[in-house]
């Protein structure tokens, strides 16, 4: 069994066959732990089905609606299916596509969205950057840095912002985990990088969350305040999986409203240069 630790949520994965287990370990090596897991997942890949099956490709980022059955969530996509039982803390994923690791990654993201939600956290579509204090080198970010989140739809510029910020440590350019701690929120990196930046998948960082910015591509660079309702709406819209479950929505709305009260949410109008960093607190 290989145990993945994202933001303190530890899930043990037993992958079959061994080739998938080896690929899983390699893919997530920066996020593995020897500590005992809180949740168990069993993964099967039917290579024969992949060979004879339809040539259906399920593009990364496509979200499959979850079905609820008792205490379980059911996933059903052309190339994989699965059951996540939140009460028994166990999951089973069956993969039947030609790219089992890509399919499994979708299952892992879904599982972590549900785990975060269960414990008062959030999985958020956002690029996260841990910036060192002003006039301090990048190497000090782990000690004195603060995390800025950049949210927005696909194509809004999340990966661009990461590319424009070599002075900062990247948590991820697509999905970041948030946990409420003490008076504030902590942001944690994940391995769920966009395909075009998969080469950075070994990077990880975490830190206290300072600001959340909805990206708006513009000719001018400025910050625009969001009202409390608009701020909550921006956050809700960027919480995948959970924002499609009517049973979880009331608490999600309340949680996002609390997050927006605790951490400023603003629209960041930016262009393709690093000038926007001059507007952000550090």
């Amino acid at each position, binding site marked *: 069994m290989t145990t993945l630790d994202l933001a303190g949520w530890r899930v043990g994965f037993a992958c079959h066959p061994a080739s998938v287990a080896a690929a899983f370990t390699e893919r997530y090596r920066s996020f593995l732990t020897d500590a005992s897991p809180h949740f168990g997942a069993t993964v099967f890949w039917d290579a024969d089905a992949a060979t004879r099956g339809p040539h259906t490709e399920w593009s990364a980022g496509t979200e499959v609606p979850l079905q609820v059955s008792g205490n379980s969530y059911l996933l059903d996509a052309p190339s994989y299916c699965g059951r996540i039982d939140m009460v028994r803390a166990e999951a089973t994923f069956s993969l039947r596509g030609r790219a089992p690791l890509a399919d499994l990654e979708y299952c892992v993201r879904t599982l972590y969205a549900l785990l975060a939600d269960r414990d008062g956290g959030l999985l958020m579509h956002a690029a996260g950057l841990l910036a060192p204090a002003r006039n301090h080198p990048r190497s000090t970010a782990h000690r004195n840095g603060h995390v800025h989140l950049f949210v927005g739809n696909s194509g809004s510029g999340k990966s661009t912002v990461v590319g424009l910020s070599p002075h900062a440590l990247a948590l991820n350019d697509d999905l970041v985990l948030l946990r409420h701690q003490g008076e504030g929120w902590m942001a944690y990196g994940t391995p769920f990088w966009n395909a075009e930046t998969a080469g950075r998948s070994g990077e990880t960082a975490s830190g206290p969350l300072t600001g959340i910015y909805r990206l708006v591509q513009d000719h001018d660079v400025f910050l625009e305040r969001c009202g409390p309702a608009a701020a909550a709406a921006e956050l809700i819209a960027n919480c995948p999986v959970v*924002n499609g479950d009517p049973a979880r929505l009331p608490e999600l709305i309340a949680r996002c409203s609390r997050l927006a009260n605790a951490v400023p949410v603003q629209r960041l109008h930016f262009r393709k240069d690093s000038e926007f960093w001059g507007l952000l607190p550090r």
Partner: protein
Amino acid sequence: MNLNDIPVHAEEVVSRVIDGEAVLVHSGQRTVRVLNPVGAHLWELADGHHTAGAAAEIIAAEYGVDLAQVNSDVLAFYSDLVERCVLSISA
């Protein structure tokens, strides 16, 4: 839609009023909308009991504006939300 219709929140929509504005989340569409304070009030009046006309009378009285104009605005507002599947008309 007419003033005798009774609007009601669609089943897939979860809402919450935050600082006078309403946040509407449609779980099926995964869309999120924000209504300004007047829209939020009209949203709360779309409770399956008030007709569109009754809602317009309440808004006209509260804001001291011409009822004929409010009737037109309320019908346009509710019709737009029905088109977006966040409101339905009570049978």
